[in-house]
């Protein structure tokens, strides 16, 4: 797959796929919104406030997933000196950061009716805030540092260092006593969420994943064009 995302193929892929991904995203999002806001049932404890879960949880999952991929690819950048990996990580970061902010803000909004406060310095919330700071530092390293090689190394070290925070976020609700509830959806353990809520959650996650794919493709294309524009000067 990574070979497919080489500079020679990407522009062709994007021009072919961008409209398709966008149309698919809109269709899945409309279906997801209908399920999340109208068709899914209210929770017996949290009533309709549970609907915030359909934007909060997918945003958190995707921001965590994107940062994990960025960190793993950063190892590849440092070990294999693969510049295409740095192009991929740079293109993934904006959507990961925005999803991180969405998770924090919607979590805060959900916190008010559920816990009676907009914010608490609890382990899960604080570690998610820390993730946003890592995303910011990663993106700022490209803006602040002029020398490309230094920016690549610095951003890679930030991403690798930030990887330590990922298991802390995941297990914070198990390791510490937190306001945040434990995970309801589990891969290894039993999922404690009813199918009527799991389906809209899955659809919204698919919509969010399609959006991050769309942004990634557009951003990757932009970064590629920047390189090619510099190349035109050298002809």
């Amino acid at each position: 797959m990574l070979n497919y995302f080489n500079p020679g193929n990407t522009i062709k892929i994007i021009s072919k796929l961008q409209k398709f991904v966008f149309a698919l995203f809109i269709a899945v999002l409309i279906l997801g919104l209908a399920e999340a806001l109208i068709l899914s049932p209210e929770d017996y404890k949290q009533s309709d406030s549970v609907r915030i879960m359909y934007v909060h949880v997918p945003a958190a999952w995707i921001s965590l997933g994107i940062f994990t991929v960025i960190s793993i690819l950063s190892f590849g950048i440092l070990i294999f000196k693969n510049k295409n990996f740095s192009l991929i990580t740079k293109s993934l970061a904006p959507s990961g950061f925005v999803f991180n902010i969405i998770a924090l803000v919607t979590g805060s909004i959900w916190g008010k009716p559920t816990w009676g406060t907009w914010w608490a310095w609890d382990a899960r919330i604080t570690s998610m805030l820390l993730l946003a700071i890592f995303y910011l530092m990663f993106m700022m390293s490209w803006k602040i540092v002029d020398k490309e090689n230094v920016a690549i190394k610095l951003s890679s070290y930030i991403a690798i260092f930030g990887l330590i925070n990922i298991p802390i976020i995941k297990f914070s609700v198990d390791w510490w006593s937190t306001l945040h509830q434990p995970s309801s959806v589990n891969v290894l353990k039993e999922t404690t969420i009813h199918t009527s809520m799991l389906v809209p959650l899955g659809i919204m996650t698919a919509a969010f994943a399609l959006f991050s794919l769309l942004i990634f493709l557009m951003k990757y294309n932009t970064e590629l064009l920047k390189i090619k524009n510099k190349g035109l000067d050298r002809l």
Partner: protein
Amino acid sequence: MISEILNMNGYGAYVLSSFLFTLVSFGILYSVIKIQLNKELKIFETKFNNLEIEKAEIAKKQKTYREILAITSASKI
């Protein structure tokens, strides 16, 4: 019926503001990336149109440049 849906047992303001924030964030991110992409395409068009004929021919021989040309108006010139 509609007011019931919007009210959501008193949680409407929380739920709808969460969804609205998400959709606005999507819109802003999409617009920013689209503007950046269009800006780079415009730079490419300008630079390519100002190239000398021989250099333009060299660029056209490269696959990536051919693909960029296929999606910009520079290819029509």
